[in-house]
């Protein structure tokens, strides 16, 4: 191993020789797909910067609950949290894709909404809210989308067991 360059970021020198950063965020590679790991505070800025770079379309936004899998492999410098919000962006002109994985802590599951930037995330963020209970600040209409309004709990969370909760619909007789 050669000596670390003097001006290198402390973490970048030993673990990964090149450690590329995109807008100051750790970048990983998953089966040839570029994955960026912005922290929650900078998430909106990173998406905005990527939008300026050409990633103008938000194709997909979904949540993952890593309750039962906390020791997953993440690049150096990314602290695992219980939830992740995964965003897939698309650059039509250059035909490239990029994925963002934002770590969201259990105690305060709140993320900035992409609605102002990509109005198409309206339904997707509602789905994540409905299924995981992750709130999005400045979302215009953060209500449940797939489950009934009076449903309790968020079904895709890992501690929401399958088939253990009685079906509850409005107006049904007990």
């Amino acid at each position, binding site marked *: 191993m050669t000596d670390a360059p003097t001006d290198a970021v402390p973490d970048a020198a030993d673990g990964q020789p090149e450690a590329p950063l995109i807008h100051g965020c750790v970048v990983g590679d*998953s089966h040839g797909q570029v994955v960026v790991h912005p922290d929650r505070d900078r998430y909106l800025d990173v998406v905005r910067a990527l939008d300026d770079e050409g990633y103008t379309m938000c194709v997909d936004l979904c949540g993952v609950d890593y309750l039962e899998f906390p020791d997953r492999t993440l690049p150096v410098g990314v602290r695992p949290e219980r939830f992740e919000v995964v965003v897939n962006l698309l650059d039509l002109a250059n035909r490239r894709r990029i994925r963002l994985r934002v770590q969201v802590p259990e105690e305060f599951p709140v993320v900035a909404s992409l609605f102002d930037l*990509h109005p198409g995330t309206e339904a997707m963020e509602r789905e994540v809210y409905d299924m995981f209970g992750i709130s999005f600040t400045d979302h215009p209409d953060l209500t449940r989308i797939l489950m009934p309004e009076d449903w309790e709990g968020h079904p895709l969370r890992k501690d929401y067991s399958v088939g253990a909760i009685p079906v509850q619909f409005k107006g049904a007789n007990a």
Partner: protein
Amino acid sequence: MATTSEELTATTLTGAEVAAAGIDLAVDAPDPGTNYHLFVAATDEGEQTLKPRSQTKAKELMREVGSVLRMSEAEAALLGDIPDDPDEDQTMIINMGPQHPSTHGVLRLMLELQGETVLRCKPIIGYLHTGMEKTGEQLTYLQGGTNVTRMDYLSPLNNELAFSMATEKLLGIDGDIPERATWIRMLLSELNRIASHLLFMATNGMDLGAVSMMIYGWREREEVLRFFQEVTGLRMNHNYIRPGGLAADLPAGWRDGVLQILDMLPPRLDEYDTLMTGQPIWRERLQGVGVITPNEALALGATGPILRSTGVEWDLRRDEPYLHYDELEFGVVVGSYGDAFDRYAIRLAEIRESMELVRQIVERIPPGDYRIQDKKVTPPPRARIDESMEALIHHFKIFTEGFKVPEGEVYVSVESPRGELGCYIASDGGPNPYRIHMRDPSFVNIQCLPHMMRGGLVADAVAIISSVDPVLGGVDR
């Protein structure tokens, strides 16, 4: 038992008085052992329905109208669809669906009307939600196909394809799928596209009053489904494309079946042209209806025929080729006005384009294996089970326990008849997906509805829903 207002006010306590009286206002003390209180706390989120204008704050309204158009609140206010006095009931909210024949299943729309003009519209979904993504976490990768195939039930083979490709990518065998399997996958996805668009022709015709078109469309689609039945054993929900290849090889005589479809379709598509495309009433009903611009479509995440109808040439088969689409000659059909007629015409042209693709694929399907010979994912052939104990155990293991997929996460997308169909799988190294998410094109595309309907006539609402071609099985999953 008359209670005077004085008595009522007398019983109302202030917060300080409550605290002084020692009354405990907490409803349920959260159990520190679970996090149940955390997710119940955030459960009361208000109604999903469209509220009357008098109950909608001006800011909300502006945002609703202006955000997609990329307008400021002031600009949006100038659009002139806001009644002068919101308190005076000039508008009416009507409910359409979920049991409405033209809503393609159980889509419910709430429309705000001013006279006959639609001002606002809100799709309310979830009536077909069965938690398939949750179910997918309980099933092994081998069983997963039976689950995803039922999501967008009009393009089952595309669902299976996206799921299988994602699984193969995680397994690292995506480069080793036999040629024959890859070409058969393409053949079936294209035939599936034809079947799906034929059904669109049928329902679109029916929604607009060309009722005989419904019979024609279903008749032609049935021919394609008959071929699927010969190949996979089922008309729908095939579970034929599986991680590692296919469930079985094509049956004897498959070529004749395909050629028969290719011979049968062209004259019937010409009939469609006579019945609909050139017909003045048809054009009158569709042209200029439900217009969406390229910028709006991109902002809303719309893909497939909706995006292409605005003139954006974007087709994953050509722009991000998967399987062997890069070796085939085909055109990407685009429109220019972004209206309902363009979306109809694009789908009709795509049937012809897909037939061209099928013709090329049939010529090129090579002999060989229909599934990967990787003992990890492929069970041993039936004949070996009779003679080998190990083969029996191996077979048993794969079908009970499933195969383990290395840790990782991957997003794979294919061009389904309705747009980009993506599959996101996160694996923890076990035999079930840790998380499986399907990015269904219909789910995203119906967000265009409020936009397309705004300012149009309520009679055109049906034409617009139809032109988006949503499949509620995919929307709700």
